[in-house]
């Protein structure tokens, strides 16, 4: 296995993978972020207490919601793109086009939900 890669973090960050690289990174951050969020959310709901309440207060904050919703929605829509292309591998040559379609689906849904969260947030709800 190619386990000895000898690639520094700096080189990794300078890798110019373009759109597909960007969605991979966002998908990974989103997956990690959701796993962290869901874990803390389950723990705080299960154990309650002061720390639990503190965690749930952060989650109910609209700034946090705008942030987490970006990653949840992105992971879900990008995940559907990955699934479709992987189950029908003949489509893989069109992955760049698929990624454009993905942004076209993601942006309006995210913009609408972010607008709703922002409006309720600013109204003090």
């Amino acid at each position, binding site marked *: 296995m190619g386990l000895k890669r000898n690639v520094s973090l700096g080189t990794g960050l300078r890798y110019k993978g373009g759109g597909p690289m960007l969605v991979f990174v966002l998908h990974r951050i989103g997956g*990690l972020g959701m796993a962290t969020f869901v874990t803390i959310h389950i723990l705080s709901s299960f154990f309650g207490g002061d720390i639990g309440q503190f965690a749930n207060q952060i989650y109910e904050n609209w700034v946090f919601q705008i942030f987490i919703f970006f990653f949840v929605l992105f992971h879900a829509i990008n995940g559907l793109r990955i699934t479709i292309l992987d189950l029908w591998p003949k489509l893989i040559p069109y992955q760049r086009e698929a990624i454009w379609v993905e942004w076209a689906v993601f942006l309006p849904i995210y913009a609408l939900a972010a607008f709703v969260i922002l409006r309720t947030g600013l109204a003090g709800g």
Partner: protein
Amino acid sequence: MASKSRNLSITGRGLTNFESIMWVFTRLSALGMYALILFAIIGALIMGARNNMNMADVLRWGFMPNVTHVASTDVPDTAPFATPFWKLVASALLLVATAHGVHGLVVIADDYITSEGGRKIVRLLSIIMMVSMSLMGLYIIWTS
């Protein structure tokens, strides 16, 4: 090989080890979560979300159809959202998402932890995490 594998069917690519079975599971669970989430969103709309919930609330209920997720909305009566039926849907989503998420963490860890011993520890921790998160989640769903 690289150009050919694309033309093979899923089964033709060989489901021989745990990793490749989980590769398929990750994709099928993605579709499964889509089905459950859409189902919960449609259910919420039928139960009156159109008038009493905003889009963000509906999506939050969709991602985890637990009654606590409608507590802060304008829904006058949350009882229809707390039926055993929705608790079953929420449980299915919880179990599928936990398995998917925890295995995803293993995939990420494997990219950075490459020694055999390290990977064994990662797997042990992942099993503990999966079982405990599933049990705590089920407890929360069925008691809320």
